[in-house]
């Protein structure tokens, strides 16, 4: 914690200022970003409306490669959506208290990313209006979902995860909302913060039960988040296609999710830090720690890739070996090399302390990793489907501009939600930071 944030009041002031005293900050860049993301969101809306009007034929999907960008986007977004809970829950349980200044926006990121992720499988449906058939509900057809499908698991895992994340995030927010209520001076702010603070008074009785709830939620969050991304992995692994039907997929997906999610946290942390002048709360130390995590994750990812190659060779199955050869020599080889470069080679720069402590380097490398992770997801979808068992049906995917538009515009929606959140809720957990501060003082 930097000197500027070494008192409770300083923390409160730093965090509440953007909401309560916006006139003290420069909002020019916020407005630029807001307008840009609003435009992108409008574009996304157009993409979706046109998609519903015309059908998924707008995309580059074909008879062999029936899954495309939508599934890759889904896996990518859900990966990002995992990091928030990982940070809040796993780091909380590991008593990594430095997380206090970044976990709140990471949790918000989780909700938005998981929400956007959940949108893609629905958009991807041939008949999206019937997505609710995945839920068991009384109906005049006397039909039920088919519970063996990984998509049903997905549906429930995402739904549970989003609802859980909202509860977790909101529960964490209550004391801070109360703080905002009590700091706010306008009637409207007092009212709305008051409503959502639910009448929190900071009573020690409340704190005690609240604390138990929060830590228990953290304990529950870890298996849930692992389940969620394992289930996403099982969308592929619970098949029999070469390159998909691998037991390594669930853990490999969980690590991959953490990997790409952390890069997004880094990017957002840098943005929030710069935009709201929170240098005192979000320090270079945070970036260094996260860079170390990226380095560790990159090594695990590299190991996973190598395990896949080894598995293909060791299985002796011609299709598996042929697929690995295709990854290196086939139509998408440029993508495969780009993925290896971004995910395996580039992060090795974090062996150097100077790189870890340069926010610019950490952010740029993080973004490259995030791109690399998207490429990884599209590679997973494309490679196997393009080069499956049926030789005569080997085909290539040619993305259309609708594919690209929807993918990029979904980033706009994410940014929009984020920018709005910055204006209505405190972006850093004040009560946890205060506690961190008091513990620091004790030591």
């Amino acid at each position: 914690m930097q000197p500027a944030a070494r008192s409770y009041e300083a923390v409160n002031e730093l965090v509440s200022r953007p909401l309560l005293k916006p006139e003290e900050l420069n909002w020019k860049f916020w407005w630029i970003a807001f307008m840009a993301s609003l435009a992108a969101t409008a574009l996304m809306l157009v993409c979706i409306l046109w998609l519903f009007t015309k059908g998924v034929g707008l995309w580059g999907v074909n008879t062999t490669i029936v899954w495309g960008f939508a599934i890759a986007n889904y896996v990518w977004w859900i990966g990002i959506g995992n990091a928030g809970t990982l940070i809040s829950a796993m780091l909380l349980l590991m008593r990594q208290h430095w997380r206090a200044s970044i976990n709140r926006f990471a949790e918000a990121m989780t909700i938005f990313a998981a929400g956007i992720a959940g949108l893609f499988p629905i958009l991807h449906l041939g008949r999206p209006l019937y997505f609710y058939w995945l839920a068991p509900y009384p109906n005049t057809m006397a039909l039920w979902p088919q519970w063996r499908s990984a998509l049903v698991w997905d549906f429930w895992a995402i739904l549970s995860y989003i609802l859980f994340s909202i509860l977790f995030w909101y529960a964490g927010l209550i004391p801070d909302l109360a703080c905002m209520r009590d700091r706010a001076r306008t009637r409207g702010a007092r009212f709305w913060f008051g409503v959502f603070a639910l009448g929190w008074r900071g009573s020690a009785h409340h704190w005690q039960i609240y604390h138990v709830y929060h830590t228990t939620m953290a304990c529950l969050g870890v298996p849930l988040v692992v389940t969620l991304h394992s289930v996403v992995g099982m969308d592929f692994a619970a098949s029999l296609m070469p390159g998909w039907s691998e037991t390594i997929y669930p853990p490999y997906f969980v690590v991959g999710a953490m990997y790409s999610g952390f890069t997004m946290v880094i990017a957002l942390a840098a943005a929030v830090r710069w935009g709201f002048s929170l240098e005192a709360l979000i320090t270079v130390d945070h970036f260094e720690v996260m860079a170390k995590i990226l380095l560790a994750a990159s090594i695990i990812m590299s190991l996973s890739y190598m395990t896949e190659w080894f598995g293909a060779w060791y299985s002796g199955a011609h299709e598996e070996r042929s697929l690995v050869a295709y990854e290196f020599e086939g139509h998408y080889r440029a993508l495969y090399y780009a993925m290896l470069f971004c995910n395996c080679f580039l992060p090795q720069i974090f062996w150097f302390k100077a790189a870890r402590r340069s926010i610019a380097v950490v952010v740029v490398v993080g973004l490259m990793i995030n791109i690399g992770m998207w490429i990884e997801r599209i590679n997973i979808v494309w490679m196997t489907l393009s080069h499956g068992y049926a030789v005569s049906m080997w085909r290539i995917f040619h993305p259309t501009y609708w594919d690209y538009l929807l993918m990029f515009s979904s980033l706009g929606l994410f940014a929009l939600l984020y920018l709005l959140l910055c204006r209505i809720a405190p972006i850093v957990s004040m009560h946890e930071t205060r506690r961190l501060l008091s513990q620091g003082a004790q030591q």
Partner: protein
Amino acid sequence: MAQIFRPYADSVVRVVMIAILVLPFAIVGVAYGVMSSPYITGEHLTLEQPVPFSHEHHVGELGLDCRYCHSYVEKSAFAAVPPTHTCMTCHSQLFTNAELLAPVRKSFAERMPIKWTRVHRLPAYVYFDHSVHIANGVGCSTCHGHVDRMPLMQQTEPLTMAWCLSCHRNPAAHLRPPEEIYNMSWSPPDNQEQKGRNLIERYHIRVEHLSDCSVCHR
């Protein structure tokens, strides 16, 4: 500092929170209610017809056999609404000047079909076959109700998939012997369960096949 909220705010917030919990279930419940209601299934609706044909009169009072008009019910998937010619076999003699029958005479004279409004309606993806039901002991009134008491035709059963399945899963409760198929006033005897099981044997019905998707959808 004054209170921000009045005391009743507590109740409001609590009600809202409970509503958030309850609402999804309520919506599903209401939706199910609507979907199985006559508004959607079309039960007990009297539709406007070009000629107010009375099954009550023709079947109940005159005792015409179903097959006199619905002549393909034993041969084809369609029971078939009769050609105008069938009406005219009698009505060229009876009620020849009745105002009600003017459209029938017009149709016959101009050789233009009468356009009836469909009462019993299944979606296009449901392949229902009258003849196989008739041949396997499903009587007319099981699905069409007491047609002989209907002055104007009505749908008496919901014709939803769940309704179809209720019989396809347990045909024993509804099967009749062949001689009772066209009996409008047939009602299940006391030992229907036993008789139904015997009839399943007799008709060689493979019950496990009846709830296959491919039975009705293809």
